[in-house]
């Protein structure tokens, strides 16, 4: 009987210890961001937003429509501004979270911008070749038309000049 109670007590003790250890492992850890952590995260977000901006600016300069990317970039910009303000207010936890959010929001923008840039450059080159070809053909046709027109006009001019020339009167 005593042996049974001992076993039960032992089992309970083991269960309690096991539950406590498991609870410690699985319990959500409190967020403890310091100034250095927050500063690092903000610097990373700053860098990511800057790179995204440069990529979008390049794409726009190449003639791409960057409206969607710009909207995404500005959402990240707004969150990043809040992160900076939270950091100045010594709210490092919120600053770190917002920096992470801004960092995540700009992920993929640089890649999308690069793709848009390539498409825009390809379109631009195609447009240039097409326009130059049309202009060249137009110019050749126009030159031929000018030469033919000149011949026609010259002939009419000469004919008119001959008609208006005073006739020689025979005196004999």
């Amino acid at each position, binding site marked *: 009987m005593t042996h049974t109670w001992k076993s039960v007590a032992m089992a309970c003790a083991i269960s309690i210890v096991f539950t406590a250890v498991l609870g410690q492992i699985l319990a959500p850890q409190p967020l403890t961001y310091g100034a250095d952590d927050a500063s690092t995260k903000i610097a990373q977000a700053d860098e990511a937003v800057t790179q995204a901006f440069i990529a979008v600016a390049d794409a726009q300069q190449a003639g791409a429509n960057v409206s969607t990317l*710009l909207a995404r970039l500005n959402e990240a910009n707004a969150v990043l501004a809040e992160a900076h303000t939270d950091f100045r207010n010594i709210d490092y936890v919120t600053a770190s979270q917002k920096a992470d959010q801004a960092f995540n929001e700009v992920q993929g923008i640089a890649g999308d911008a690069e793709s848009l840039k390539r498409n825009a450059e390809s379109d631009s080159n195609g447009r240039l070749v097409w326009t130059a070809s049309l202009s060249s053909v137009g110019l050749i046709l126009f030159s031929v038309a000018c030469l033919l027109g000149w011949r026609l006009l010259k002939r009419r001019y000469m004919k008119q000049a001959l008609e208006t020339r005073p006739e020689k009167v025979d005196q004999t």
Partner: protein
Amino acid sequence: MIEMGDFKLLYAASCILLGLVILAPTVALVVRLPEGERFSELYVLGPGHMAEGYPFNVSVNSVYRVFLGVGNHMGGLEDYVVYVKFRNQTESLHGDVDESLFEYRVALRDSDVWEREVSFSFSERERALVVDGYSVAVEKIVAWNNQTSGFYCQLLFELWHFDGVSAFEYHNRFIGLWLNVSVPT
């Protein structure tokens, strides 16, 4: 009757002119014409969305509203930061970024204008300036101004823009709203 030489010249000139018109679309794709003056605009409007009625006599726990706007006329995409600062009469006008209390960031295309309503108030309980709901502790010593008989502070909006390489630089534009903080509550 027109001389043959003159006629030939007139015809050749007309042909060249029309030839240039045909070439114009291609030339337009290659040649970049000089653009106009490049600049950015920073403006603050009063609560009625006009350049009047700006908050001046302020007291604690009252909310004041202005409209802050940035316009891009730089010929391309620009990334801007507007720093909101709070200074007394003796502090330097353009100090460090660290002196800013609040900031707005926006990327704008050429000819785009960004505008938003900015609210601010002074919280007596928190001894803070509240900008757009963000409470920012402000520790300022404001001296009595004998000339105008009052205590004055300035809410400053500074425009910075991305230098195109790695950092933001001051864009030589700021707007300051003088606030008379000596009004009894």
